[in-house]
């Protein structure tokens, strides 16, 4: 025990991960210009409904790195929340994803949303983003990023 406490007070603390969960409600329609109308219906089924539909997404942002020896933290949570508010929630929450620049070229599937959120958090300077996990519904979830615990 004392050993670990001692390590945590040295300049290079043990490496840990911190995950923060955000809620985001948005609508989307899965439709690709590369497919015909019939193909879109066949591939996307009810998700191709021209009027769209929506989800309450659960967004998990995992940051990783050495635990700061003075604060005991991987990153400042207030900073992370502020970044998420400005760069994720204000842009995506209560929006139609299809109308956003990020999804002009790619279909707003949750796979693509997960990669986009990962890309957004790469600009966060407070800690390194390790992984994004998004729950589209209670039955579907998507992960993108590194395998945790591998250095």
């Amino acid at each position, binding site marked *: 025990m004392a050993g*670990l406490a001692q390590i945590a007070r040295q300049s290079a603390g043990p490496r840990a991960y911190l995950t923060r969960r955000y809620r985001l409600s948005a609508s989307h329609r899965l439709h690709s210009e590369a497919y015909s109308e019939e193909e879109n219906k066949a591939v996307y089924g009810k998700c191709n409904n021209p009027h769209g539909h929506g989800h309450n997404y659960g967004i998990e942002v995992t940051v990783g790195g050495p635990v700061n020896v003075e604060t005991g933290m991987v990153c400042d949570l207030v900073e992370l929340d502020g970044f998420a508010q400005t760069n994720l929630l204000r842009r995506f929450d209560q929006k139609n994803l299809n109308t956003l620049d990020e999804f002009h070229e790619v279909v707003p599937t949750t796979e693509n949303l997960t990669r986009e959120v990962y890309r957004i958090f790469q600009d966060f300077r407070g800690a390194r983003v390790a992984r994004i996990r998004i729950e589209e519904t209670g039955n579907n979830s998507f992960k993108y990023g590194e395998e945790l615990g591998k250095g």
Partner: protein
Amino acid sequence: MILLTRKAEFSSAHYYWNEAWSKEENERVFGRCANKNGHGHNYTLEVTVAGEVDPVSGFVVDLKELKEILQREVVGVYDHRHLNLEVPEFAARTGMIPTTENIAIAIWGRLEGKIPGAKLHRVRVYEMVDLFADYYGEL
């Protein structure tokens, strides 16, 4: 190899304070968490162990035994306690600040080498449903 996860819960009080800093500096960095009267959480602990399945029992570990180890090593020490005042690894000056990250690291230290037949893989500590820390033993 199979990964097996067992949950446990404990409710504890804590505050964040770095003894090397002034009161103002602590309040600036830790905000409301620096209130020395403390505040509390219902923590959820998830301990994941890795091991081979015993061909006879079909178990990686005996869950009853794992439950008892978590009870003895962690829950019995942390539950309904003030982490800063009553748990040695978080004592002022000599210990760590009881952040979620450090609680996960401390629990790893308490459990490592104590689970027969399996290797500790991950310690996850939820401070709230929307905030948790993972530790994989990485130094």
